[in-house]
């Protein structure tokens, strides 16, 4: 009865709306850190990479997964650190 695709679409739309409403409140002053902060969040794809890398299925899948983990974690670690560096300059 619960169709996962429909549910996905519902969640997608609601998240788009929330994102839109939250972001439009950020003042231009902080748009550069916002860009880099939301870039860090886009590394969430790491979560999928972890499963692909560790699922222990086919060998190719594992290699692809591990590569994905490397890329995604550069995005996550680099993204958060660089945002932090930038923001600390504002705090004076």
């Amino acid at each position, binding site marked *: 009865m619960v169709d*996962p*695709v429909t549910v*996905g679409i519902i*969640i*997608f739309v609601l*998240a*788009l709306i*929330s*994102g*839109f409403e*939250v*972001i*439009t*409140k950020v003042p231009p002053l*902080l*748009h*550069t*850190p*916002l860009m*880099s*902060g*939301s*870039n860090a*969040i*886009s590394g*969430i*794809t*790491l*979560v*999928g*990479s*972890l*499963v*692909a890398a*560790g*699922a*222990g299925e*086919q060998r190719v*899948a*594992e290699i*692809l*997964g*591990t590569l*994905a*983990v*490397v*890329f*995604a*974690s550069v*995005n996550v*670690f*680099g*993204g*958060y650190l*660089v945002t932090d*560096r*930038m923001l600390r*300059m*504002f705090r*004076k």
Partner: protein
Amino acid sequence: MRESLIDIAYLVSAVLFIFGLKLLSSPKTAVRGNLISAFGMLLAVVATLFVKDIVHFRNIAIGLIIGAVAGGAWAYLVKMTQMPQTVAIFNGFGGIASALVAISTLYGAFKIPEGVPLEWNRAAVGLSIIVGSVTFFGSFIAFAKLQEIIKGDPISLPLHKLWNLVLLISALVLTGFLVSSGNVNFAWIIFGVSAVLGVMLVIPIGGADMPVAISLLNAYSGLAAAISGFVLNNYGLIITGSLVGSSGFILTKIMADAMNRKFVDILIGNVTIQMTEEAFAGVQIKGRVKKTDPQEVAILLDSANTIAFVPGYGMAVSQAQFAVKELFNLLTKDGKEVYFAIHPVAGRMPGHMNVLLAEADIPYDKIKTLEESNSLISETDIAFVIGANDVVNPLARDSKDTPISGMPIIEVDRAKTVIVLKRSMRAGFSGVPNPLFYLDNSYMLFGDAKQSIQEVAKEFKEYRKL
């Protein structure tokens, strides 16, 4: 039960991301916001490791360590002025990770969730590969151009847009084949075609236009994550990916509006302005250019009471912010009233000037918005234009026929005296000539902004000591 637990953990992460982004709306809470968002990421990762069926932790450990070290070092070592290309490349990495995860499902990395039609799953895989690959290769070109690994000038083929369209349609048709056959080779072909598309989309964009492209690619990397959420039926990915997607599109829209360009044009790749001759048919520039030198400027500064600094892209290029801070210190110590007039799209990223001034420790209360500055400007003795051009161009206000017409400007022409620091008479980002330079009350101080400011500061010190 375990699946529900992890879904709830992802929901909590997403709420932390939203909350973190909300805290970004004030400089006071922004650092905390970023930490909260990072904590959300940690939660998502830990929940995944504990709850999902993961057997090979070694691969994961290796991947995480390499990523953490590389990302950490990169973030630590990069210069603040290299921020746009850094964001670009990190962003690209997120995109390619999504594409790789999507491909790995075709090698059996995931079971297709119950209730999801096989076709839908494969269609999502195809889309994820397209968006992820375009994001990565597009971001890479953006990075290479900004880092000056390849030439920054727009490069474009004959019938460039037609080729892009052909590539996009091919990728979609190939996705159709993938859906009907499930053959993994199609996935790799899609990946390749999209890579070419990514390169083609960004290669015709000039270095100066890159931030718009980067912001758009940021939106795409969010979209790629959301689509892989559909592939894996992972609601955490869907929520978070779409958050990032909205954020990227909104920023792109803001830049587009500020540059007086249509958002839709930018979406289809019309980023760089095509300047036409007719655009300037109506522009008549009268007056004479007057050069000045650091010594003369020092004398002028000495007799001024209120001074506005109006920074632009040139300050970023020459990294003059520290020199500016020094001059600012000298002048304020001397009892002068100095303020910074910041145009919302000065520089090449939203908030660009604010980041640089914050880096140089300029007191926050000296920074005035466009409106505030314009109400102070007629009482200002000297407006010091530091590598800005379009944002002070009176034509934007006075003419209807230029690409920047209608954009609000900082009206430095209404100040008593204007001193413009730049290297030449060349136009700014928009290519529109600037009649400001020819006004009776304006003087040009040619040269690199940082050097000029340092010399002015030196002369000013000397002059005051006499």
